C-alpha cells in the first residue's frame, strides 16, 4: 500500500487511452481534428465542428486557468481526505477545451477562479491522472 489516496480509476479503452496514459510521457493528450484543428474532449470519433473523421491525437501545453472550482469537504472515499479542491480547468489552447480535475500544491483557501495553472500527473498503475498546480514562472 502506497501513501497515495484511494482513487476510482477509469476503465481504459481504445478511445480514452491517449488521455489517461499520456502522463507516462509527461503529456496531456487530447483528440484534435486533423482538418479544422478543433480540440475534441471527451473523445469522439468525429469532429463536432466540421464533421471530419480525420481525428489525431495531440499533446496540449498543459497550461490553463481555473474556470471554476469547489472545495469538497465531505469524505466520499476511504483514504481520500477532505478538504480538497475540485476544479474545471479551461486549457489555453481553446476556451471550451475543459476538464474536471484537482488543484494540487496549493492551499485550499488560495484556489481562485482565473488562477493560471499547469498540469502535473499523479500515477496509479497505468493511469496518469492529470492534476493542476499553480503555474510557475511564465
Amino acid at each position, binding site marked *: 500500500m502506497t501513501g497515495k*489516496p*484511494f*482513487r*476510482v*480509476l*477509469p*476503465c481504459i479503452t481504445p478511445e*480514452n487511452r491517449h488521455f489517461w496514459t499520456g502522463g507516462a510521457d509527461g503529456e496531456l493528450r487530447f483528440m484534435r481534428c486533423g482538418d479544422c484543428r478543433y480540440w475534441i*474532449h*471527451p473523445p469522439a470519433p468525429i469532429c463536432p465542428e466540421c464533421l471530419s473523421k480525420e481525428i489525431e491525437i495531440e499533446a496540449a501545453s498543459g497550461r490553463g486557468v481555473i*474556470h*471554476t*472550482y*469547489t*472545495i*469538497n*469537504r*465531505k*469524505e*466520499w*472515499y*476511504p483514504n*481520500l481526505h477532505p478538504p*480538497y479542491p*475540485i*476544479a*474545471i480547468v479551461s486549457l489555453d489552447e481553446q476556451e*471550451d477545451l*475543459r*476538464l*474536471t*480535475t*484537482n488543484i494540487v500544491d496549493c492551499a485550499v483557501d488560495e484556489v481562485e*477562479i482565473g488562477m493560471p495553472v499547469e498540469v502535473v500527473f499523479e500515477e496509479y498503475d497505468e*493511469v496518469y*491522472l492529470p*492534476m493542476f498546480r499553480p503555474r510557475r514562472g511564465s
Partner: protein
Amino acid sequence: MAEHLEKRAIVSGIGQSEVGRRIYGGDDRWERMPLDLTIDAALAAIADAGLDRRDIGGICTYPGNMDTPPGFSAVGVTELQDALRLELDWFAGGLESPGQLGSVIGACLAVAAGLADHILCFRTVWEASAQGDKGREAVTMGGGGGSFKARTFLQWSLPFGAPSAANWIGMMAMRHFHEFGTTREQLAQIALNARKNAALNAKAVYREPMTMEDYLGVRMISDPLCLYDCDVPVDGSTAVVISRADHAPDMPNPAVHVEAVGSALHGRPSWDQWDDLTTMACRDAGAMLWERTDLTPADVDLAELYDGFSFITLAWLEALGFCGHGEGGPFIEGGSRIALDGELPLNTHGGQLSAGRLHGYGFLHEAVLQLRGQAGERQVAGGPEVGVAAAGGGPLAGCLLLTR
C-alpha cells in the same frame, strides 16, 4: 406553425404514498417495498381522477427500474403493469429524457396523439432506506474500493474525488457567485423558504424552523454549498394521471391544463462541458416553454422549481425568466418575494430540501394541489390560476406550465 399538442392534455389525478426517511421495512418486511409505495400512489391517483384501473391505457415513468445508485429507482413500467394487470397501449420508462418530468411530457404527447386516453405517470424513490446508515457515501460509485472502474461520463469526475452532484453543482454555483456576486446569504433564502413552507406540510420530513444563523453555521459540503443546500433522501412514490382534455368534464376534481412544456437541450449534455456553467439545461427548456404559449412569466402565480440543490432553483428562476440571467441572487434576497404570501410563491410544500427528495414529481403534485385550491394550510391565496412545475439540474431539465 405546428400545433402545440400538449395543450390537449390535462392532469386529471394525483396521488402520493406515505413519505418518510426510512419506511422500507427491510428484506423481512415486504409491506413497504418500493413497488408497494408505487401502488399506493398509483391507485390514489387513479381514484383521484375518478377512474378505474381498467381505464388506464398507458404508463410513463422516470427512470425505469435501475439497480444503482441504491434506492434511485426500483420500479419500472413492467413491475407496475404486472402488479395491477394493466392493459397498455403506450408505455415508456427511461433515464434519457428531459429530466424527471420528461416522462410526464411524453404522456401529454401520447394522450394528445390518441395512443391512450389516460396515462399513469410515476416516480418512486427509496434512497433513504437503501442508503441506510451509510448516508450519501453509499451512492458514490466505487466507494467500496477495489476493482470498480469508472466508465461513461463518470470517468471524468470520479477519479478526482468528485462523485457527487454536490461537487458538480457546487462548481456551477461558484462560477455564478464569481460572475454575478451572488452570496450565500441570498442562496440561503431557497432553503429558509422551503423550511418555512414545510412547517405547513404534514408530509414534509423536516419541519422545525431554520434560521439564517442555522444555515450559515451548518457544515459545508462542497463550497459554496452547505448541508442545507442539499435535498434529503426519502422513501416515497408520487403518481399523476394525464388525460386528454375532452375528459375534463367527467373528472371529479378541477382539471389542471397543460399550457406548455419545455424539453429542450441545446448545450452539450454534460455536467462539466456545458457551455455556460452559470446556467444549466433549464436555460433551454425554460426558453422553449415560453415559445409555446401567449402567457408570460408575469402571469405565473406560483413556481414549484426543482431543488435537488438550492442553486438549481436559482438557475430555474433565471431560466424561466422570472428575473434576468445572473439576477437570481437579488431576486430572492430577503425571501419575501418567494414567500407563500409573496409575488411568486416558491416551492410551497417545502421542496426536496425540506419535504423530501421525491425527485421531480413532488413539484408537479404540489402545483396541481395549489391550482385546484386543495393545498390546505399552505394554500396560496387569491385562487392561483397559473403555475410552473420544473425538474432537473445540470444537463437534465423539463418543465410544464399549468393552468386551472
